[in-house]
């Protein structure tokens, strides 16, 4: 079972853009171990993973999830402020470039604080994904697609995007 760092997909522009949100809850145990100045903070590494899962689904959807899409490189990542419990994070991923070997994406991070209505831009992450069966190092991987698990399919189904996945 893969640990998901997005809650649901809220927008999808085929082959171009995918937007997902993540509600940060104090019921998430990892937050109990990441307290800064008395406040539980969502670790930036897990925010990046959320951006990566959003971008990864976007990249995978282009090939109907037949390709094994893995995060290969975090080219740049900035976060201007902390995210804490009660906040909602929005990941907005767009494709920069894609070919047989991989894809580059840009993901912007927005935050809506608890009880608020407005979204504010708080970060930006540039990622590089590899289609690992076409990796430049020539390494062989197992045939079955171990990247897009049932959890991913559940998120697609919940967003009404289940038809994007191949049988």
């Amino acid at each position, binding site marked *: 079972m893969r640990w998901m760092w997005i809650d649901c997909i809220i927008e999808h522009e085929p082959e171009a853009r995918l937007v997902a949100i993540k509600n940060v809850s104090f019921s998430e145990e990892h937050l109990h171990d990441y307290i800064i100045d008395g406040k539980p903070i969502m670790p930036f590494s897990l925010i990046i993973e959320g951006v990566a899962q959003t971008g990864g689904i976007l990249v995978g959807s282009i090939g109907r999830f037949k390709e094994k899409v893995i995060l290969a*490189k975090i*080219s740049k990542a900035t976060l201007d402020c902390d995210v804490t419990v009660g906040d909602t994070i929005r990941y907005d991923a767009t494709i*920069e*470039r894609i070919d*047989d070997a991989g894809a580059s994406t840009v993901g912007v991070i927005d935050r809506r604080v608890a009880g608020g209505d407005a979204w504010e831009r708080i970060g930006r992450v540039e990622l*590089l994904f590899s289609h690992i069966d*076409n990796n*430049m*190092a020539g390494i062989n991987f197992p045939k079955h697609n171990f990247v897009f698990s049932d959890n991913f399919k559940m998120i697609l189904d919940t967003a009404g995007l289940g038809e994007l996945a191949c049988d």
Partner: protein
Amino acid sequence: MSRDEIFEKIQEVLDDALGVDEDEVTPEASLTADLGAESIDFLDIVFRLEKTFDFKISQGELFPEGLTDNEEWVADGKLTDAGLSMLQDRMAHVDFDAFSAGNRDISKIGDLITVDSLVNFVEIKLAG
């Protein structure tokens, strides 16, 4: 675009892709041996060159790929005469003299990709 202008843009590309300082990006610097590029960085560099110079780069056009899959090109971990000839024919931007004259250890072939070879590649592509 002049060769100097191409070089300056490639400095920026490598600064972004590899996190190296511009003064490390000298014409003779090898992407792998001197600038620390790994295989995934090559894909990053390809994407950034395409964006910077507004052209498309086919897989295997800039960097040698899939050599070890072909016994005619690589035998016992060494590039064969046929492999060398094929590369010289397909990759005019790379100086293969070091491989022609000496050790042809295939694991070192990435060392031949220098900043200067990227400049050559862009110059050839832009000339069209």
